């Protein structure tokens, strides 16, 4: 709790949280009025299950955005990792214990490589990650054009499983966000991210290895993409090179809506969590009230603009 308050104070994020929280409450109340099945435990358990993929990718994106960067490779990376996992598990279904850490290592390495190129080549993150995304996507298609592979049943069950009435995926997601939040607020290396992201020059003068921090942020983004891919593969049972395509841009919405500014140095994972909750609940609610998904895009766009506009005007005051 104190960490939370410190987070709020340090980053002046209260305004964003209030806006996102209010929008979320409006959705929940509207949902309750519009459908008698919306406010049921069953629907919430289903909704929490849906949080994990977007949640993981957005968490990774938060670190990168805090550094003033952006990771446009995550979508392709998630797709590639689902292909890796499903192909590996089709070959050796008994080696789940190896497949999962291996995919995490590969993803972290690719993320770190993104960071390294940004630091060494001094090319903008947008270009490096866009290029990397394209390379990953192309290479994945060379190996597998159509969805394929398979996963053991136990792994598939895990993605849909509950502890009591709470989906495992929701517990995992909350735990990871809490860990990430604590790390950012309570440790030296976590605080360095804010420092290096907000004012790299000052950070350097104060002895922070800014380049290392940048590489670390991209590596975390890769690791988070692996987390998303693990759940996505379990949920779909296949590897699909195209399945992550929409995630790249989707992952940025919760980050900016949650108050993390694109210039870097300010924001936090709690805001991102609320952003993910908001976007996922919105899609769920619009399915309940039977409106076309095209409205979902329009409303999502409106929410981004409204939330960010409020954040900026709040800052001016």
């Amino acid at each position, binding site marked *: 709790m104190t960490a939370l308050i410190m987070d709020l104070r340090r980053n002046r994020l209260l305004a964003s949280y209030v806006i996102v929280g209010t929008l979320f409450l409006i959705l929940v109340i509207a949902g309750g009025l519009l459908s008698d099945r919306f406010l049921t435990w069953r629907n919430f358990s289903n909704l929490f299950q849906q949080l994990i993929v977007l949640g993981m990718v957005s968490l990774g994106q938060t670190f990168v955005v805090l550094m003033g960067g952006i990771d446009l490779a995550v979508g392709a990376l998630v797709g590639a990792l689902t292909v890796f996992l499903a192909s590996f598990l089709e070959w050796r279904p008994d080696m789940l214990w190896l497949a999962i850490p291996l995919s995490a290592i590969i993803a972290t390495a690719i993320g770190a490589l993104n960071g390294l190129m940004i630091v060494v080549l001094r090319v903008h993150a947008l270009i490096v990650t866009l290029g990397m995304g394209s390379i990953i996507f192309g290479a994945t298609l060379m190996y597998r054009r159509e969805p*394929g592979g398979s996963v053991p049943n136990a792994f598939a069950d895990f993605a849909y499983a509950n502890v009591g009435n709470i989906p495992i995926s929701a517990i995992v997601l909350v735990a990871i966000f809490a860990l990430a939040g604590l790390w950012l607020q309570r440790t030296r290396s976590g605080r360095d991210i804010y420092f290096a992201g907000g004012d790299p020059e000052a950070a350097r003068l104060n002895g922070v290895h800014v380049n290392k921090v940048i590489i670390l942020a991209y590596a975390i983004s890769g690791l988070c993409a692996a987390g998303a891919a693990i759940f996505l593969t379990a949920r779909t049972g296949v590897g699909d090179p195209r399945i992550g395509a929409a995630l790249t841009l989707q992952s940025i919405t919760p980050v900016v809506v949650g108050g993390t500014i694109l210039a870097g140095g300010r924001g936090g994972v709690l805001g991102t969590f609320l952003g993910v909750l908001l976007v996922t609940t919105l899609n*769920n609610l619009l399915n309940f009230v039977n409106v076309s998904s095209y409205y979902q895009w329009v409303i999502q766009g409106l929410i981004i603009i409204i939330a960010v506009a409020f954040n900026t005007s709040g800052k001016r005051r």
Partner: protein
Amino acid sequence: MSAESILSRKISRKTLLRNVPAAAAAVGAAGALQFATPTPALAADEKPGYYGVPRTWVWNPNGNTMVDTSKWKKDGPYTIGFSNASISNAWRVAFQHGVLWSAGQHKDEIAHLKVTDANDDPSKQIADIQDLISQGVDILLIAAATEDALDPVVGRAMQQGVPVVMVDRRVKTAENYITYVTSSDWALGRLEALWLAETLDGKGNIVMLPGIAGSSVAEIRIKANQEVLSNFPDIKVIEKQYCDWNPATGKSVMAALIQKHGKEINGVLADSALQGSGAIQAYLDAGYKDGEIPPMTGGDIALMYQLASQHNIKMVGIDYPTSMGITGIETALNVLKGIPVPDKVEVSFQVVTSPGADTTSVKGDRHLLDHVSMEDPGDLSPSHGLPAGYNPATFNPEYPK
């Protein structure tokens, strides 16, 4: 809507013709149980089309498997959940219109039709299906974005006691759904190749213009074409070029082939009018006069039928019927009523020929202008089964929401 109800209403010939695929769909959904009444008497030159029981069901040389649906039987009115992969092209729009319209026709039995649209994103479709189950739907009608990624969630729906009917695109495991509403690409490929071979009296050079390389629909149609052509040793396939079901690609590919082979091409075997209409335009651009353009195959959009009629081209066209959306709702209702359904509902298509272009084995169900009118928009999918004057841009059916 049954065939009987269509016939008993006072309707113009045009309306009757336009409703024919709907009737076929209705009968198809009922499988073996509701055999159609005979075709109404019409003047000799009018071809109303085929609207009997699916021919692939009747003519299936093996036994048809019927699925016992008694364990899914429920009292209505029902809530149906329809999870659509997308409405990202003209075919998918007309298809969804069929689903909505059909639900409106059955509003006495259907209390709610809940519709979701996954924008071709399998990940979103998984969430959509879960959301529909949360809303307590009695049955799911699903057009899957991909047959692999949706497989687990569809299987889970069945395990949770929600019956699933697949329509247009299925998931890979047959145990995960009750039945699959589709149309036969094998029959389509055989009929088109057979018509072309017989029209050419079994000899000549042809070019093949299939759809998208590697897509199951295109590859099945090619295999079916080849099955037939293997019986005609004097027919030479001089070129085979994929045209991505795209009119512009069809036109540019055909233009190049005309440059290369000119009048040596005796026939064009296109699996859809999407590229077939482009091929006709390539011939027209190359200065071919009416009557000089070789026989062609195609189907799916009005433009090719219109061009063939206008320029006196011999053709056979078979649409992949968008009316299967209508059949999908009918089939879902049958499942909920406990009426047995075939394990695969293959919606009959219309075999459309130019007047006088019937061959020994392939007789047209309709002529070009029985199937489309010259006023129809070129991209209209003629086998929509919807009421007369259907226009996808303005059609807004009422259905129980």
